[in-house]
């Protein structure tokens, strides 16, 4: 009897020791990097937030299988609504209540500009992948980082390509009257005119404009137009493209003009716009036909998890998380060290391209700019211009 009791006791002790050891190990494993997600989940930019979230979820799922340097990653989202005041309040709430080590966001330039002073005061780094306004990095903000090419990088490139590769000599600018819209249009105009092209008209419109038939009519009445750079969110973008096709201006409607765009219209736009989108040429930060293994794996994993094709929004968000993981791998553990390690990034490879930050924390690698043309069957043809 005593012997049996002894065995039971020993066994219990052993189990207890093993259990404690593994709990101890698990707790040592339980260090978490807290990531704040300031994304638009309501308002006209809500599709940005919805897609970003999916990209983030995929990255987290992959990373948290084994963690990085003993750290796991967690994300808390707050709705910034693509607009300065809600974004400011969301940022304050996030910082106060969640105390993140790093924040990713926002998408819309107006909102990003508004939250930058807040994160700077709180000394939390901001990693941005969606806003194009120059002043986000140009003045030199030590706490704000951007992996996406800014409006100057994109604008100069697309205007040059339009002039050279598309032989465009006349352009009509269509843009929403926001920071990003106006900024992008200006860069295109300046570059295009310096090359010798002519901007025949610039038509700005507010987010409340619904009917684009009149605008399309006006464009049609301007005579020969080669390219129509368009800077607007998806809702209005759809209507513009369709109206331009109805007016017979763009290729999709039997006309000669080509619409140009940048990252605002994700894949899926064509399916909604229909034939009207034929011939659309856009810059994307993500080329799904990219042959690199990393991209192929990403596409496959995304398809498996979400049963859909990833867009550049998904890819951006994925890269942001992966970059954070890379920073942790290089030894960062808290907000300050994350900031410093980020600034030193020289050769990170993401699915959207490479990342190297210059001294204003802007990513200067141009392999993030890919060009796509919409084919008549609404799929994308990668134009290897870069």
């Amino acid at each position: 009897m005593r012997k049996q009791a002894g065995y039971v006791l020993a066994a219990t002790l052993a189990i207890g020791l093993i259990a404690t050891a593994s709990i101890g190990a698990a707790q040592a494993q339980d260090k978490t990097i807290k990531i704040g997600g300031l994304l638009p989940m309501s308002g006209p930019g809500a599709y940005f937030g919805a897609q970003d979230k999916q990209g983030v979820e995929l990255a987290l799922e992959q990373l948290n299988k084994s963690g990085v340097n003993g750290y796991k990653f967690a994300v808390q989202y707050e709705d910034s609504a693509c607009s300065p005041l809600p974004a400011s309040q969301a940022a304050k709430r996030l910082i106060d209540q969640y105390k993140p080590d790093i924040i990713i966001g926002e998408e819309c330039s107006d909102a990003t500009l508004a939250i930058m002073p807040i994160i700077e005061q709180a000394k939390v780094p901001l990693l941005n992948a969606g806003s194009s306004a120059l002043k986000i990095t140009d003045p030199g903000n030590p706490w704000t980082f951007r992996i996406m090419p800014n409006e100057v990088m994109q604008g100069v490139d697309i205007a040059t390509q339009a002039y050279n590769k598309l032989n465009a000599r006349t352009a009509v600018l269509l843009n929403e009257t926001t920071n990003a819209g106006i900024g992008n249009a200006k860069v295109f105009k300046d570059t295009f005119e310096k090359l010798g092209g002519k901007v025949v008209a610039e038509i700005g419109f507010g987010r409340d404009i619904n009917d684009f038939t009149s605008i399309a009519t006006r464009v049609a009445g301007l005579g020969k137009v080669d390219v129509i750079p368009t800077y607007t969110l998806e809702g209005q973008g759809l209507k513009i493209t369709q109206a331009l096709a109805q007016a017979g201006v763009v290729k999709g409607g039997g006309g000669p003009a080509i619409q140009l765009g940048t990252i605002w219209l994700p894949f899926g736009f064509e399916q909604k716009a229909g034939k009207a989108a034929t011939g659309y040429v856009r810059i994307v930060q993500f080329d799904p036909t990219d042959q690199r293994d990393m991209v192929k794996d990403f596409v496959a994993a995304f398809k498996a998890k979400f049963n859909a094709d990833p867009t550049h929004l998904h890819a951006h968000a994925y890269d942001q998380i992966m970059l954070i993981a890379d920073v942790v791998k290089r030894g960062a553990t808290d907000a300050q060290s994350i900031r410093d390690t980020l600034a030193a990034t020289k050769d990170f490879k993401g699915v959207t391209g490479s990342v190297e930050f210059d001294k204003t924390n802007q990513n200067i690698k141009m392999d993030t700019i890919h060009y796509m043309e919409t084919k008549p069957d609404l799929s994308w043809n990668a134009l290897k211009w870069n």
Partner: protein
Amino acid sequence: MRSSGTRQVTATIVAQQAINGIVLGSLYVLVALGLTLIYGVLVQINFAHADFVTLGAFAAYFFMHLFGGSYLASIGVALVVGAVLGWLINVSIFAPLRHKGSELLPLIATIGVSVMMQNAMLSLFGPVPYAFETPYSQQVFRVAGTFFTAQSIIIIAVSIATIALLYAFMKFTFLGKALRAVAQDRETAGLMGINPSYLIMLTIVISSALAGMAGAMLAPVLVLTPFAGTSVIVKAFAIVIIGGFGNVEGTILAGLLVGLIESFTTQYLDPGLIDIVVFGLLLLMLAFRPTGLISERREENV
């Protein structure tokens, strides 16, 4: 209109923008008609009217996409949805508050309903714009240098038919005449054996049905989100005032006028100035001729 090597003839541009303006204006008329009818009979404004338009649009959308209905049938569905909403708002707000005699409280209540509806739709449908495509909005006709879609033809046809029917109803049927009687003088009409409450309900139901139907036709044109109504309602108010509260002919004129203002301001000025021009006109009217372009009502207690 093709942009070939030559500039388009001014006449063609003007003609095209006139077409655009009339199509848009017809839609605005349908929305504003409901408002003006309600005002004529009830001396009340339904602030949620434009949200009926939005909900009608969504009803049409889901009818087509969830039940595979045809577009034309979905217009009918939107009409019914609008009618039901009208009945609901009468029963819950206008009728109960009628006894209190305040002219402001029902207006404020309908503001509340409008806010509720918009945010309820936001929760249900989300903020992402819906792409409402119909086979008619893709079919383009080109005539003498101008273009229009089959959708525009439907819009004009339905608007004309509706207005004609409404006119006939008001002028030739007993109910229609009774309605006009109630609008003129409710007490006397009541004394003559007409039941004002029933007629008021009928008016609101018809008006809201018009709004719903307008939604189904606006949906392919508008960017369809729960807030689509806001952009329409302010213009609808302007139209009702410019045309004259309670005045059907005035509303039609004013609606077409606003549509034309919109297209021509876009052509010759800037899309951003549309609201300023329309509301500048509104304020001018209010300053100098508050009863509207064609005034039928005496200028009493405006």
